[in-house]
């Protein structure tokens, strides 16, 4: 794994890493990936992947109106709000056709 790989993953994960941390994580992930690569020794041909340990399907319920959190309760924990809304930085630049995403 090289620096570019680490930077690419950090960007996917929306994590800002310092120069020093990029190098440390590069080494640590290298060690951990080397360790987990021993899974390749196992023959799993014809074995179904198991995402959950129990058989579960979708748990549907009827769409009924019922009491839920009030708007004030839902907004109470947010770092920035305005009126009835969560406040965030501008998502769509004026005149842009697509949402801005600098990376």
């Amino acid at each position, binding site marked *: 794994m090289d620096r570019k790989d680490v930077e690419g*993953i*950090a*960007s996917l994960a929306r994590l*800002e890493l310092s120069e020093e941390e990029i190098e440390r994580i590069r080494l640590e992930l290298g060690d951990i990936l080397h360790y*987990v690569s021993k*899974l390749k020794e196992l023959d799993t041909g014809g074995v179904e992947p198991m995402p959950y340990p*129990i058989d579960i399907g979708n748990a549907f319920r009827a769409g009924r109106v019922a009491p839920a959190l009030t708007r004030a309760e*839902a907004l109470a924990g947010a770092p920035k709000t305005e009126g009835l809304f969560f406040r965030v930085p*501008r998502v769509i630049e004026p005149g842009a056709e697509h949402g801005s995403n600098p990376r």
Partner: protein
Amino acid sequence: MSRPKDLCLLPAHATARLVREGTVKARDVVDSTLERIAAVDSKVGAYLKVDADGARAAADAVDRKRASGKPLGPLAGAAVAVKDNMCTRGLETTAASRILEGWVPPYDCTVVRRIREADGIVVGKTNLDEFAMGSSTENSAFKKTRNPWDLSRVPGGSSGGSAAAVAAGECSVALGSDTGGSIRQPAALTGTVGLKPTYGRVSRFGLIAFGSSLDQIGPIARDVEDAALLLRTVAGHDPADGTSVERDVPDYVAALKQGAKGLRLGIPKEYFPPDLNAEVASAVKGAIARLVEAGATAVEVDLPTSPYSIACYYIVATSEASSNLARYDGVKYGARSAEAKDLYSMYALTRRDGFGPEVRRRIMLGTYALSAGYYDAYYKKGLEVRSLLRREFDAAFEKCDAILSPTSPFPAFKIGEKVDDPLSMYLSDIFTVAVNLAGLPGVSVPCGLSMERLPIGLQVLAPPFGEETMLRVARAHEKLAGTAPEAPGI
């Protein structure tokens, strides 16, 4: 009537009986517990937050309920500590992370609601490794928790605060959560009983998610009866958690009476490797011999994929974590970086400032395992190995009723000893992670002390929804070996 001095040291079942019959008041239990916390928690550091006012008010309400002639619930007056990754209405919940510092949930998680309905008293929120990621509680963003048996050692983790609180008498009983051993391993290291239920047995609604296909909430207690009592209280289907199973909850406390006579105990050689710590091996083998003397039989079973379970776990758990932790984006709750200039920097800087090193490491590993080009080699392969692990357990349980092993490969280690070596820390969970991958129940019970007088844990596993069998074995062992003595470090 004068208050018995050490109410805080009684198990919850004994406390609740005294409160129900009117011998003591719930308020006395809470006052005794708060005094104990005031006396010892500056040394132990089990709690992130003690809710003294809330606990006193809840205790007074239980006492008024009894005075008005209403019957009290099975946890009447018991002081319950709750790991700080479970939401408590009106009480700060942080998962020991800066990113949630100051966050006050607007609702109770289902297990806490059930404890309140059973007349248990929530006394506070306990420390953990940030987002339950760790095996020593050293990854908490806020404080270290020390092992009540030796204050220079870790209590295990990630539910180290809950285990230390139970061992130090700072609560009657506690809740932890277990994704790869986070209830059982700290229980083993603190001389307590820690039970991870079958996946789907207990609602996860309001538990801050780490690995959604692995996480389960369960009890940490000073004896097996308390573990059974707390499990019976919190278990059962919850419409708010689509992965909780619709299945009756047996009376786990009543099951304890049946003993272990006639049960077949599976001993997997893979869980007793030649380089296993000699004191751990000898204590666990002693426990097996005790149970055989009491009428159980020991049979050899094979779990050949076990040596791959840590590798499998760190793929599956980190993949799920990287997805679950995407929600900490600086928008709906918690902190937001003051330096944020635009949308991307709001995310990236908030997450840089809010997450500690181990959480960042796991998000990176999980994101990598799920990313294009690596998904099949890592994540899908991990899920296939997970199937193998489950199949092997299913085959082993054709030959036995329960499986016995050590819980942790070593007793409590020193604070700082493993903190710079993530892989060596991960290997603390070598005997516990396969259970989460396979969705099985497991319990750790004390089975002796090392030469340095540190507790050693016996792990008992059962097939899915086999908690009754597992608890029978645990109780039978406890009858022969006793509970751990009072922790000497405080």
